[in-house]
């Protein structure tokens, strides 16, 4: 009951709390910037977002000069808000929620709390990934073709483990524009000697029939059992579902986030991103630019040229090259790229089950049962 009455304030700080924030920032963090600490932790390859956030909070506690517990708690709360308000990653929220819950439940002193936090980040958390890989590798058969999206450390570790067990596997990985982290996955797997092919994001439907299973990593697992992960995951899962291919998600339990998205846009966002929705239409059309960018003058002409060339219009070989020429001129601008969403929500009915460090694989619904049981105490 007590958590129930206080929690509405915690997921999204109200406007009043945000107003007071610059003041609070001036008051305390003189020599310690939690965002810098977070980014430093993140630059280390081995820390995912939630762990980097926890590490930043632990470092804050170390650097803190607060003399009382309540003073420390205030600093922590403030740091948590700063992180949540500046970082787009939902993993940061998950990590902060976890740490907050841990601190609240912890009985020992500050020193041991810090020691616990450090050991969690450097020892326990990597073990989680190892545990998941151990469970997930049993789902990978010999001669298996795996499709994965973008870049996920847990997925890579699982695949590498299967490779070490001499399972003959091959991997399709999506390019995942605009970050193109799929290239990184490709690099790592190829170096390990695993046959790996990069797939255009738009070719997922084409390649799906050759795939045996889809492995997904994610940024956060939310209360509905849905995955929040790098954009494109949702459509990979949709295509897999349409082709009746099993989709397994791999997620450490520190990625569980107490939030219930009702739609793709219903995700908590940092303050500066909250005002403009990704992919929203411009208020006014840049008419002048439009005329300059499009060489075609009439709409009917443009439709014919780009989509449906008439039989007598040109021979089959020249049309694509013409389209390529047009496309070359029409590249996505920086502004257009900025309009793109970083994450999407993969609804739970598309995912077979989620493999976590909590033991046997969970169905998406049992994730929510776990979360409700954890947080509604």
């Amino acid at each position: 009951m007590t958590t129930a009455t206080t929690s509405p304030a915690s997921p999204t700080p109200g406007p009043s709390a945000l107003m007071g924030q610059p003041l609070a920032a001036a008051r305390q963090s003189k020599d310690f910037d939690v965002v810098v600490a977070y980014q430093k932790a993140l630059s280390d390859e081995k820390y995912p977002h939630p762990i980097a956030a926890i590490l930043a909070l632990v470092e804050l506690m170390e650097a803190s000069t607060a003399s009382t517990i309540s003073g420390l708690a205030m600093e922590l709360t403030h740091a948590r808000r700063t992180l949540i308000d500046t970082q787009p990653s939902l993993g940061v929220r998950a990590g902060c929620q976890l740490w907050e819950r841990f601190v609240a439940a912890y009985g020992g002193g500050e020193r041991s709390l810090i020691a616990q936090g450090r050991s969690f980040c450097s020892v326990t958390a990597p073990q989680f990934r190892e545990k998941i890989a151990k469970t997930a590798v049993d789902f990978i058969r010999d001669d298996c073709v795996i499709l994965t999206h973008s870049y996920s450390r847990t997925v890579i570790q699982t695949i590498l483990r299967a490779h070490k067990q001499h399972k003959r596997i091959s991997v399709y990985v999506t390019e995942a524009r605009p970050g193109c982290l799929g290239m990184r996955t490709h690099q790592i797997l190829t170096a390990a000697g695993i046959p790996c092919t990069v797939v255009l994001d738009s070719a997922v439907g084409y390649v799906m029939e050759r795939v045996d299973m889809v492995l997904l990593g994610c940024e956060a697992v939310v209360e509905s059992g849905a995955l929040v992960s790098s954009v494109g995951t949702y459509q990979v899962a949709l295509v897999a579902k349409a082709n009746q291919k099993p989709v397994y998600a791999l997620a450490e339990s520190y990625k569980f986030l107490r939030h219930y998205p009702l739609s793709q846009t219903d995700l908590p966002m940092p303050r500066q991103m909250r005002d403009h929705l990704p992919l929203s239409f411009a208020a006014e059309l840049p008419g002048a630019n439009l005329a300059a960018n499009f060489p075609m003058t009439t709409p009917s002409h443009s439709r014919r040229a780009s989509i449906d060339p008439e039989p007598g219009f040109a021979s089959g070989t020249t049309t694509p090259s013409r389209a390529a020429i047009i496309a070359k001129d029409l590249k996505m601008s920086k502004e257009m790229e900025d309009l793109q969403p970083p994450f999407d929500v993969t609804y739970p009915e598309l995912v077979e089950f989620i493999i976590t460090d909590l033991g046997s694989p969970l169905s998406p619904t049992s994730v929510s049962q776990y979360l409700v049981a954890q947080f509604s105490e």
Partner: protein
Amino acid sequence: MSSATSTPQKATDSASPPSVGATPTGPTGKPMTAKELKKMKRAAQVAARGPPAVDHAAPGLASPNASAAASPAASAGPSGGTSRHRRGIAAAAAAASAPPPPPNPAHQFFSHLPVPRDPHTPDALASDKIHPVVVRLGVLIAQGTLRGASARTLGVLEAFREVVHDYECPPKAVFWKDFSSHISPMIAYLETCRPKGVGVGNAIRWFKGVITRLGEDDGDHIPVATAEASQKAYLTEAINSYIQDNIIVAGQVIADFAKEKIKAGDTVVVYARSSVVERSLLEAYRDMQARSPPASFSVVVVDSRPLHEGRTTLATLSAAGIPCMYTLLPLASTALSRASLVLLGGSSLNSDGALHSRAGTAVVAMLAKEHRVPVVACIEAFKLSERVGLDDLASNEVGTPDSLLNIPTARALELPKPLPKNLIPLHLLYDLTPPDHITAVCTEVGFIPPSSVPTLLSKGAGLSA
């Protein structure tokens, strides 16, 4: 469920002011006693029902012989009654003496459901076992003036608080034992007015538990002289905190959660009336206005005959300045094709996540699912039920057939009274929305998927006790 069931309803309507004078009078002008009234009605009911379907015959209505024996008793009684009454009985008696028509199979499906009954107000008032506040509450509930699970639970608890206040423990009696037996006829009386429903049922079960626990820790440390006063104070305090925690604060917390999901430019569809949903919408609108005045959302109130509860919602929302649209259930599909969110209230939530709510809710939820619009059921934890209902006939209530058949705008379509025997007007008050059609349940602990209701129930066992 033909004309017979309409008879008790008439009696209910006329008995609405809780005074003895309003009792239906016999032909002699002398007020009929409740016993006579009951007898007459029963006879009429038996006669009107005719030979019952064999497989579900209630005891006492077992054979056509019984009805044949009963109808003379009815006509041998006060030779008159209202003319409608007499005609009804005569027709029914004629039907009973004729070779029995094939039983209407529709009877079998609905005969187990509670029908609206006469709360026997004068009886209750005459016996001084029932506190007048409870009688008043019973009449309000039976009439339908007090509707909605939250309002009814609140009413019952407040009435019990009065009862506690006015209760005097007889000398030599043990407080909690005597009070238990003092309050149980009142609970029974309320049950005769209308089935309790899950919310009221949970509250009453909790209250009985509190009384019993009074006996458990009826410690020696309480001096006998002040025991009664302090125990009464304890009960009052317990009721107050139940109301505060489980109804008022719970509603507030749910509204706080639900309003987060309403964004500027959204179209929210609501059905009929729910206090929590109304509150969420009002607060969402107030917040939005406070943040940036031009931002707004709009609400489509979907409503249906015969209760038209949505009109109350509409009045409240439009008074607050929220742009509203009002439509009836047949056009819900049109409304939902452009909606961004459906907010539903409910009478109770089964443990499998199915929502027991005003009839019509399931249709709205189904259409919303069809249009891929998220459906959020807002429900307080005290309305959670441990039951699982396979369909909406397992537990439901039957409304008055009159309200279903009387169409004020189309008098010509009205059916003759008594209704033809092969016609059963079916007015069910509730339906069951399967969990597949609910995207999320909004409770005091936040948004949960319907599949997590059991987890909450196991937690909630400690919460409400």
